[in-house]
């Protein structure tokens, strides 16, 4: 009887470890897919729009002046290119892979719906899933904020990313269920604390989570 229970428990533990690894793989795979879409948008769509725009310019310069049709077409093309850029930025910020979480957050803060104050000294590069989770967390908090600002402090703590996200207003800091799932999968700790004018979230990521294949 006891050996049977011990056997069942060992089986459960094994299954549990498998599920944890598989959850991490699913998240990593999802991120990679989104990144592939961004690359397609960038290399495929945006670059082509730019090329067509240049061809249009060449045509325009070869025609007698006063032809407005081509100019109008050029303007529409420029608007299309701007939409493609916005879309690609929204799908996946390329800057995250290329320059890391600090640069990506700075870029986000420039066009966020409310002030996002950043104070993140000494950041390093972290595993892609960590950077993506941290980025999504800040974007999620900002978009769900009911107050007047969001502040993000923290930085590197012996190779691990630490974020203190604060927001004023009634809603305080909202960490959505998908973000909680991500944090959990990454073995990150999340603590919610009362702050002077709202609620703050203290997030500490674990050391490099290994995404193990099967």
């Amino acid at each position, binding site marked *: 009887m006891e050996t049977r229970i011990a056997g069942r428990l060992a089986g459960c533990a094994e299954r549990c470890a498998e599920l944890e690894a598989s959850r991490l793989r699913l998240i990593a795979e999802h991120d990679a897919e989104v990144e592939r879409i961004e690359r397609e948008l960038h290399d495929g769509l945006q670059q082509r729009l730019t*090329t067509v725009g*240049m*061809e249009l310019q060449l045509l325009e310069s070869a025609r007698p002046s006063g032809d407005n049709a081509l100019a109008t077409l050029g303007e529409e093309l420029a608007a299309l290119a701007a939409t493609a850029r916005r879309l690609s930025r929204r799908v996946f910020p390329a800057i995250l892979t290329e320059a890391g979480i600090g640069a990506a957050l700075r870029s986000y803060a420039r066009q966020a719906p409310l002030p996002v104050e950043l104070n993140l000294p000494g950041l390093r590069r972290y595993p892609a899933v960590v950077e993506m989770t941290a980025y999504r967390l800040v974007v999620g908090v900002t978009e769900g904020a009911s107050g007047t600002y969001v502040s993000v402090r923290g930085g590197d703590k012996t190779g691990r990313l630490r974020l203190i996200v604060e927001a004023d207003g009634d809603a305080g800091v909202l960490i959505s269920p998908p973000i909680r799932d991500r944090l959990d999968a990454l073995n990150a700790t999340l603590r919610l604390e009362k702050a002077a004018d709202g609620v703050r979230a203290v997030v500490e990521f674990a050391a490099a989570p290994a995404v193990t294949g099967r």
Partner: protein
Amino acid sequence: MRIVVADDDVLLREGLVSMLTNRGFEVVGSAGSGPEAISRIRATKPDLVILDIRMPPTHSREGLDVALAIRAEMPQVGIVMLSAYIEVDHATELLRSGRGVGYLLKSTVTEVDQFFDALDRVGRGGLVVDPELVGELIAAPRRSNPLDGLTRRETEVLELVAEGRSNVGIARELFISEGTVEKHVQSILSRLGLSESAQDHRRVLAVLRYLEAPQNGKVGHKTPGG
């Protein structure tokens, strides 16, 4: 002006080459990767290079590395960097290398007049920072916004300073005298707690850094959350 063009996207590169040739520029070389760009530039000694930031082999910041290497080797060569996304760090890294540099969004090339104007300014040793990046920086939401205290004219001047224009350039753009520009610039910089610099590129650097993180400026703002 003799130009080398480096971009790994063949269609885009060819498009650029014909656009430049059509405009009367002499394209003396083109390249599709970082190492290729370096060797083309060394072999042809152009007046100006146009570099894509993301190129093989690593598709990350080859263009920027090529720019810094060329800067050290041939400081007289003007450098125009094209990027699919805009990042203040890249701009400041480039601007720190001195005069005759430009940092533009790739899509800007279809705004031909603006693009050729940028090439011209960089060719003459000037600085060009993409107006879209500057616009974003100026419009970024801030908790206590020191820019709110500026008049509309002052904001216009600040924008042009951040885009890399000299006082003469700003005066011409806004149809005001150089003396008036100087007065505006001095008042803006002192309001933001930035010191006036004789060198244009230092001025641009200070303004860009300030715009990105005003709380790190010298205005005495609270540190975030503090």
